[in-house]
């Protein structure tokens, strides 16, 4: 009997709700940007910036409200995601404000960005309050597909900016980058679709050269998605969204089916597609050319890629100090959005940049952990999808700015200037928190009386 045997019990600790840890980290996450803000002010003007108190109170209020909402509506949610997101957003605001201090870099963006961040946090709060269960999203699988298609196709009909057609311009209101929202909606569609189809995709296959080759008819969806991402590349000349869209599908397909062959197919298809499109699309050619020859002189100056590398080099290991870099020398098109990482690298150095990248890594790790902990397949796939989209975006931007891959026009989540980006990423974190709340919630205790009675309540 069991009393003699040596049994090894492996069980998890009933996960504590960890809200107090989150609060402590949130305080930390507010104080670091405030410290950076004061540092920039002292370095630029020799005095504490006038808005320091207001900024502290504003950021603290934002953090406090989100914390109270999470405590009330998602008490078992992951303790790390919110503080990390808050810290990245705060640091982004500081860096944008810091770049606003250089008159040569255009008009001030920080107040707008603060407004967008507040809207993003409001959306985050709204999601936590009104999205009681992430499985509700499963009902909108095919609606999400249509919404995503509309969001992805719409920018074709609007004029492009800097060669990439990724904006919807509403006269008088400003412009919107629908691709940022599309990545959330498309993750919902993929999760719903793959949950239903994954058995067919995983099991109906032949083995060939150690790879499972899927049947021709199962290849259909991946080919359709591939064709669509190529169309985005051709008609919107947007490398980033195209890569994100296709990469996300391959990631989710792999997670849903556990078949390595999908990754092989995905890589082959994307490589083939990229080479084919680069053959005739001049915008892509320019980007690749700049990537391969960064030191070439264009209009009497070096390319943006080289400028970003100069700033990394100038920063060195520990950086030049906040507010003491030479970001004003960046002549490029987007020092506050696409290239903000260059300023980060220069002013806080390799050590600081690694810290920031680790923060992204932590956020991604928590997302994957949420997927592991989630008990329903839709939640698992959705968490992987959202995290994957986030990770791909970080990789594409960081890789582009540091010269690992050709630069594509995307924004660093939370850090870079851009309203759509910050709002969409807060929504993304909101959905992830909702999934993690469901995943970490302990099993409910049953009502003790009814089951023992002769007549039973039949619950659906």
């Amino acid at each position, binding site marked *: *009997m*069991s*009393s*003699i*045997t*040596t*049994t*090894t*019990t*492996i*069980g*998890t*600790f*009933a*996960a504590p709700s*960890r809200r107090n*840890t989150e609060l402590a*980290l949130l305080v*930390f*996450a507010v*104080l*670091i940007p405030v*410290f950076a803000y004061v*540092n920039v002010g*002292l*370095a630029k003007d*020799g005095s504490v910036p006038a808005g320091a108190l207001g900024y502290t109170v504003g950021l603290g209020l934002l953090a406090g409200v989100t914390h109270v909402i999470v405590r009330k509506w998602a008490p078992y949610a992951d*303790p*790390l995601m919110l*503080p*990390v997101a808050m*810290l990245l957003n705060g640091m982004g605001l500081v860096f944008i404000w810091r770049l606003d201090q250089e008159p040569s870099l255009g008009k001030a963006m920080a107040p707008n960005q603060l407004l967008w961040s507040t809207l993003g946090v409001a959306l985050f709060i709204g999601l936590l309050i009104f999205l009681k269960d992430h499985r509700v999203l499963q009902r909108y699988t095919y609606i999400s597909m249509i919404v995503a298609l509309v969001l992805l196709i719409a920018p074709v009909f609007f004029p492009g900016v800097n060669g990439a057609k990724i904006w919807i311009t509403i006269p008088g209101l400003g412009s919107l980058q629908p691709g940022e929202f599309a990545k959330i909606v498309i993750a919902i569609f993929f999760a719903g679709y793959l949950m239903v189809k994954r058995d067919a995709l995983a099991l109906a296959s032949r083995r060939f050269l150690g790879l499972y080759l899927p049947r021709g008819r199962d290849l259909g969806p991946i080919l359709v998605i591939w064709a669509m991402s190529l169309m985005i590349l051709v008609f919107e000349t947007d490398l980033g969204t195209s890569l994100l869209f296709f990469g996300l599908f391959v990631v989710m397909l792999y997670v849903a089916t556990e078949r390595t062959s999908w990754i092989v197919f995905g890589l082959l298809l994307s490589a083939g597609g990229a080479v084919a499109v680069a053959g005739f699309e001049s915008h892509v050619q320019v980007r690749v050319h700049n990537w391969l020859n960064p030191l070439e002189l264009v209009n009497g100056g070096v390319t943006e890629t080289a400028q970003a590398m100069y700033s990394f080099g100038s920063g060195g290991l*520990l*950086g030049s*100090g*906040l507010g*003491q870099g030479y970001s004003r020398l960046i002549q490029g098109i987007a020092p506050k959005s696409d290239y903000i990482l260059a300023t980060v690298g220069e002013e*806080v150095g390799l*050590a*600081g940049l690694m*810290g*920031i990248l680790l*923060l992204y890594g*932590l956020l991604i*790790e*928590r997302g994957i952990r949420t997927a*592991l*902990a989630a*008990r*329903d*397949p839709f939640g698992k796939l959705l968490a992987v999808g959202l995290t994957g989209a986030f990770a791909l975006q970080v990789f594409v931007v960081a890789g582009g700015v540091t010269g690992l891959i050709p630069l594509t026009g995307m924004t660093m989540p939370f850090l870079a200037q851009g309203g759509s980006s910050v709002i969409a990423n807060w929504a993304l974190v909101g959905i992830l928190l909702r999934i993690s709340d469901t*995943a*970490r919630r*302990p*099993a409910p*205790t*049953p009502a*003790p009386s009814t*089951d*023992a009675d002769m007549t039973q309540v039949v619950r659906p």
Partner: protein
Amino acid sequence: MSELTLTVMRLGFLAVLWLFVIVAVQVIRSDLFGTRVTQRGAARRGGEPRTQRQSAPPQQQRRQEGGRGGNRQRRGAPTKLVVSEGTLAGTTVALQGQTISLGRAHDSTIVLDDDYASSRHARIYPDRDGQWIVEDLGSTNGTYLDRTRLTTATPIPLGAPIRIGKTVIELRK
């Protein structure tokens, strides 16, 4: 502003940024090492030889529904449910007075990956006296306690095998 202050602030900023990262990693540690491995039996009866091993090696099942073990159970009452055969062999679930549902449905306490199991196959729950009861929920292929197919809710003797498809579970102290 003096050079020294700025240098101190520059290094200070890097320090607090990394401090945040390290604190965050510390928080993650509790998740990574969140599983608790308890050697039961051996500690209590150190002198006795271990005559039997557990039939299947325990798998690293990360189950959310585990708990800190029912320390407040009465003596002689089972404290855990052990899956002894089937794909989930080695999984244990602490019995803490909660209803344990078994089946292929994804919200079951123990999700059976078994073609012979129904989506809501059976449930195990304590009655008012703390006696654990197994009840078949109208499954297609039936739930067997020892060799008999269950027709009504039946109390579970300690160590009696409950068979659902290829899965066998039992209650242990």
